[in-house]
């Protein structure tokens, strides 16, 4: 994304945070960890805004959630969710979006780099998520994998594929949008 005025990037970052919140609302409860579009929008935030503004976007998303705004999975909020079983995934979004932005932000963005970025990002999300889930619920490794990772792999694969299809088009559309504002 070509550098726009910081004012415009602030609005796009808030927009991506709101998208992540909207993605979290559509939560399909399949176990203690629900299937959400949340991480789909986190990945797209990283790909569109880059590492610095992507970090700011996910940062304010988590801050709003911690402060009580119901923006986490299932339309709920509060510090309790960070302490709860899925808190690891939420914390994992911060390093993940930074890494996705850093890997994918080349002078000329290419789908291969987007794919690698998203795979590494998802790995980090699961790393943080599973370790915290195991710590909190005291499950053994095998059970926490069965509950915290395996049910989501097909869903996440679809999300990564959809992101690869959508992001180049959105990058072009944003580029053609009226670059209004000084």
């Amino acid at each position: 994304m070509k550098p726009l005025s910081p004012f415009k990037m602030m609005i796009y970052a808030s927009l991506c945070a709101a998208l992540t919140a909207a993605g979290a609302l559509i939560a399909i409860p399949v176990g203690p960890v629900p299937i959400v579009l949340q991480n789909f929008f986190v990945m797209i935030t990283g790909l569109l805004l880059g590492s610095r503004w992507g970090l700011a976007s996910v940062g304010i998303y988590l801050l709003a959630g911690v402060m009580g705004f119901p923006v986490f999975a299932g339309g709920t909020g509060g510090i309790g969710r960070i302490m709860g079983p899925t808190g690891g995934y939420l914390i994992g979004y911060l390093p993940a979006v930074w890494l996705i932005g850093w890997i994918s932000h080349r002078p000329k963005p290419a789908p291969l780099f987007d794919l690698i970025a998203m795979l590494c990002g998802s790995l980090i999300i699961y790393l943080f998520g599973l370790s915290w889930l195991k710590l909190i619920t005291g499950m053994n490794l095998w059970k926490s994998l069965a509950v915290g990772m395996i049910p989501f792999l097909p869903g996440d694969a679809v999300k990564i594929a959809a992101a690869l299809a959508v992001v180049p088009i959105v990058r072009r559309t944003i580029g053609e949008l009226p670059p209004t504002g000084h």
Partner: protein
Amino acid sequence: MAHLTGFSYYHGNTLLHRIDIRIKLLSFILLTLTTLAADTPGLLLISSMASAALVILKDRIFRIFYELRFFMIFLIFIFIIQSISTPGSSLFQHRLIPFTWEGIDLGSRLIWRMLLIVLFSMVLVSTSTASETKEALKRFFRPVPFIPEERLAMMITLMIRFIPVILEQIHEIQDAQRARCVEKKKNPFYRIKYLAIPLFRELFESAGELSEALESRCFSEKSTPITLSSSRIDWLILAFVLSGCLVILLP
């Protein structure tokens, strides 16, 4: 879809509306941390505080619980997983499902805690306006050196404002696609792709127009601070909450 009340401030003049937002936020954080550390007697005390808050917002109780319907299913799953995975004296000798007494006890307390925390956050959100919360955020983060608290507060306000807009646009885009029989295509990749493309284009276009609207009303990071006045009652309530938490945590 735009009527997502969970997100929005519900105008009213109840005691909870009048409390200074900083006190409200502080007691919210205190209560949440205490709930996580509390045991059954502690949880009982905190539940009484929660029900007191709900009584004050009596006309909105149904709306708050209506918002929590997804979260309830989520809680049930946590209860089942917890009660299965904790070792201990099992409940049903013969069945394959290893329900254990310890598991049920642990699971029910976990759900009780999470329900209390979420109720407190719903009460906080529906009784404080975004500009109040923004002002409290600015005051909390001002001492922190490297965080630009003015920009942070504005970004959170913009985010809260965009959520109902996004939900409404998702609804309208889905309507437009359903009108052209998109439901015959079950492949999730196809559905996500054709929802995301118009959604992103529409949103980034409206974000561009919103930035023009902000600029034409001279938006800058400096603005008149909203006067936050904390009266005697506020400090009384904070003291009450603080003592309640200490009683639970100390012995």
